[in-house]
């Protein structure tokens, strides 16, 4: 099996020998954002669903843990998870947009288009920029709504 064979076989050169470009960045970001969504995003979604089904008290406990604890004396644990929860939610928003835009790029690549060096570089850059922009726009909208 791979990993156990003697080193006589030729090996693919790994990341450090290449000069980094946006196409490499968008590729690894597609994997990173996808894995983040698959593990953290799906897990949080199931937790949220379970809290909805479990009733108002459980749901309030869920919100107090990951978003805002309304009690006057907030425990140290909730102080930490309230901050952590917001970081995770912003991160998941970014992962959603990054994976969505990067996935759309892959649909275009699947047709055989967009492999020319210039257009590949351009669309890789656009995907990364759009992911950051859409995340910022979403959270500006949420904060504007909250005010």
């Amino acid at each position: 099996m791979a990993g156990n064979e003697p080193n006589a076989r030729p090996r693919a050169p790994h990341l450090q020998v290449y000069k980094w470009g946006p196409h490499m960045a968008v590729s690894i970001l597609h994997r990173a954002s996808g894995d983040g969504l698959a593990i953290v995003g799906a897990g949080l979604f199931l937790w949220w669903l379970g809290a909805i089904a479990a009733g108002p008290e459980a749901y309030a406990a869920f919100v107090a843990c990951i978003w805002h604890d309304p009690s006057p004396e907030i425990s140290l644990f909730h102080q930490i998870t309230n901050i952590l929860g917001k970081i995770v939610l912003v991160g998941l928003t970014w992962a959603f947009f990054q994976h969505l835009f990067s996935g759309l790029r892959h649909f275009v690549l699947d047709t055989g288009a967009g492999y020319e060096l210039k257009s590949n570089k351009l669309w890789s850059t656009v995907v990364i920029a759009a992911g950051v922009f859409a995340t910022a726009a979403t959270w500006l909208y949420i904060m504007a709504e909250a005010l």
Partner: protein
Amino acid sequence: MGDGTHLGKVRGLGSSGHGSQHWLQQRLTALGNILLVSFLFVSLIRLPLGDHAAVLRWASDPMVALALILMVVSVFWHLRLGLQVLIEDYVHGPMLLLALVLLNFYAIGGGAYGIFTIARIALAPVTAGPGGM
């Protein structure tokens, strides 16, 4: 590595002949995800998420519950395929089998929990308690 012989296939080496199926399923579930996760995303932005009664009313709407169940199927199918590739790239030797088994537990178990929970929410009897309906 397997050389594609019958013995190699029996040992789980070489091509399994399912590569294009994996590729196609990843794309088709991706299309489902574009539609269904976008629906969830817009809903999350627009819902008063701190209000349990409002969220419950939304999630128990039959069309919403159906969309959520379809989303769970599409998402957990897609994430199983994606995480499989991740595991195959970084985990080697006997741990590979264990990792893939755990992945199936996660994908199938998580998906089943999600579908069952949505069904529970949608099919829960309406209680006419204080504040209910």
